[in-house]
């Protein structure tokens, strides 16, 4: 190489210099000839120089061409030989720099392509997964949408039920207030009943005393009546005996014949008197018997009345006691009903609050249903987008494959 450079130096620099000196020493040559010689010499030198330079340049450029051919084939593994600091050297250096840069770029592109391929592959997988997940989400959201519709319907029924509950609670509160008033009135009546029954018990006690006194007097009357009956029986017996006696007197007078006629008249009068006495005694006996019987009935009834009065007194006492219990229980009932009334009022207020809350829930549920419908639609759109992305990812993967195959053609 150095020889070529030295030769080229001689041809280009030293020969023209020598030729010039020769020419300068040839004075016999005409001016024009000299000039033509000089021109010829110059052309010769120039042509020689051009040949030398062309040879040198060709050889150097051939190296660069080889490198460029390899570059064109994608072989970036060769280093570009750099000789000299001339334009070719600068060109070789520049090409070498370009090759290095290209190698770095291709390396980065390969790395990026690999990364992109992996990423696109992952993207494809992820897209499939996302598509599947989105489809699943869409199905779930549709289920949620159906559930939301069911929830709206249920909440509507709940609203209706809550309205009925609120109305029922209000009615219960009203009836509880009415029941409280009635319980209060019942307690008052029970207290009045206790007082009345106590007065009745006292009255029954007085009545019992009167009945006992009357029974005693009636028994005395019965005793006297029986004594009268006994006396009447005695009178009747006497009249009977008198009647028999008069009959016997009449019989004796009849046996006495004419002498006993006057005596027979007297005996007959006595018999008539005895008979009248017996009839009167019989009437008195019947009356007395009737009085005795009726007195017996009165005594029996007085006994019954006395027993009834005693039983009534006992029952009145029992009624007083029962009414006292009723009064106490009525007070407890009134207190319980009052508490129920308060709780019913609180329940009515809670029912109103519950109604408002359920109505809010209804609104939210309606909004949720609408939102769920929108989400469902959006999910369907997302599913469609994801399918499109999946297709695009597949295309990108194909493109990435193609790019990688292209990049793999480069030899680093």
């Amino acid at each position, binding site marked *: 190489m150095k020889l070529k450079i030295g030769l080229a130096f001689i041809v280009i620099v030293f020969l023209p210099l020598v030729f010039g000196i020769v020419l300068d020493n040839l004075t016999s040559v005409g001016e024009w000839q000299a000039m033509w010689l000089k021109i010829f010499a110059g052309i010769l030198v120039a042509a020689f120089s051009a040949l030398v330079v062309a040879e040198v340049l060709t050889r150097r450029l051939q190296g660069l061409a080889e490198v460029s051919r390899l570059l064109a084939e994608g072989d970036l593994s060769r280093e570009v030989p750099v000789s000299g600091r001339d334009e070719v050297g600068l060109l070789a250096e520049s090409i070498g720099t370009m090759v290095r840069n290209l190698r770095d770029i291709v390396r980065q592109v390969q790395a990026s392509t690999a990364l992109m391929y992996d990423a696109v592959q992952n993207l494809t997988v992820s897209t499939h997964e996302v598509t599947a997940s989105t489809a699943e989400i869409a199905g779930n959201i549709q289920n949620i949408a159906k559930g939301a519709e069911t929830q709206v319907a249920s909440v509507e029924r709940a609203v209706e039920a809550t309205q009925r509950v609120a109305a029922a609670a209000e009615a219960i509160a009203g009836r509880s207030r009415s029941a409280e008033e009635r319980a209060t009135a019942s307690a008052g009546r029970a207290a009045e009943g206790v007082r009345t029954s106590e007065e009745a018990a006292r009255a029954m006690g007085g009545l019992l005393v009167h009945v006992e006194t009357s029974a005693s007097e009636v028994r005395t009357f019965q005793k006297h009546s029986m004594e009268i009956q006994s006396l009447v029986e005695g009178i009747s017996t006497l009249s009977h005996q008198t009647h028999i006696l008069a009959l*016997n007197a*009449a*019989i004796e007078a*009849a046996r006495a014949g004419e002498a006993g006629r006057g005596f027979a008249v007297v005996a*007959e009068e006595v018999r008539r008197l005895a008979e009248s006495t017996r009839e009167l005694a019989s009437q008195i006996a019947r009356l007395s018997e009737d009085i005795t019987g009726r007195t017996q009935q009165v005594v029996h009834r007085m006994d019954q009345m006395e027993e009834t009065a005693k039983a009534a007194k006992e029952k009145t006492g029992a009624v007083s006691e029962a009414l006292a219990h009723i009064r106490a229980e009525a007070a407890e009932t009134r207190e319980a009903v009052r508490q129920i009334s308060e709780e019913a009022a609180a329940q009515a207020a809670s029912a109103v609050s519950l109604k408002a809350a359920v109505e809010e829930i209804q609104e939210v549920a309606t909004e949720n249903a609408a939102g769920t419908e929108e989400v469902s639609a959006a999910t369907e759109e997302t599913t469609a987008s994801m399918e499109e992305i999946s297709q695009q990812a597949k295309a990108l993967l194909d493109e990435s494959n193609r790019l990688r195959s292209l990049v793999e053609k480069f030899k680093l």
Partner: protein
Amino acid sequence: MERMVVAPIGGKHAGWLTGHLSEVRPMPPLTPLPEPYPFLSGTAFLGGRVVTVLDTFPLLGEAAAGESCRLLLRLAPPLDHLAFPIPSILTVLDYEKLDLREEGAGGVWAGLYPFGPSWVHLVDPPAVSRELALAMAHVLHPHPPGREDAS
């Protein structure tokens, strides 16, 4: 004027003339007979004598009086050993012999005497004694010639 003692005998009436009676007295305790005899209730001890007490009811075709009789009519002598138990004395009537209907006579009865709308069977004491004797003979001799029963 004779008088007639009237007594209720079941649903009928029996009458005794006062001249045929010796006394009227309360029913004394009776001594029962060792064997039952027709028309006889028993015996009673009256005034130191044993009196045969007849049964008035069967004589009028009524059921036996039992213990319902409270009075005893004792006949006058010579039949004062006979007595009739009666429940009571219904009344004592004035007796007019012309009013006696003898169509009802027979047995122990002297006839029928008008008593309001009904009749009184008037007792004939001698016939009573006779019929009692025949009845006793019938009892002692069950087939006496010519008579079937006492009534």
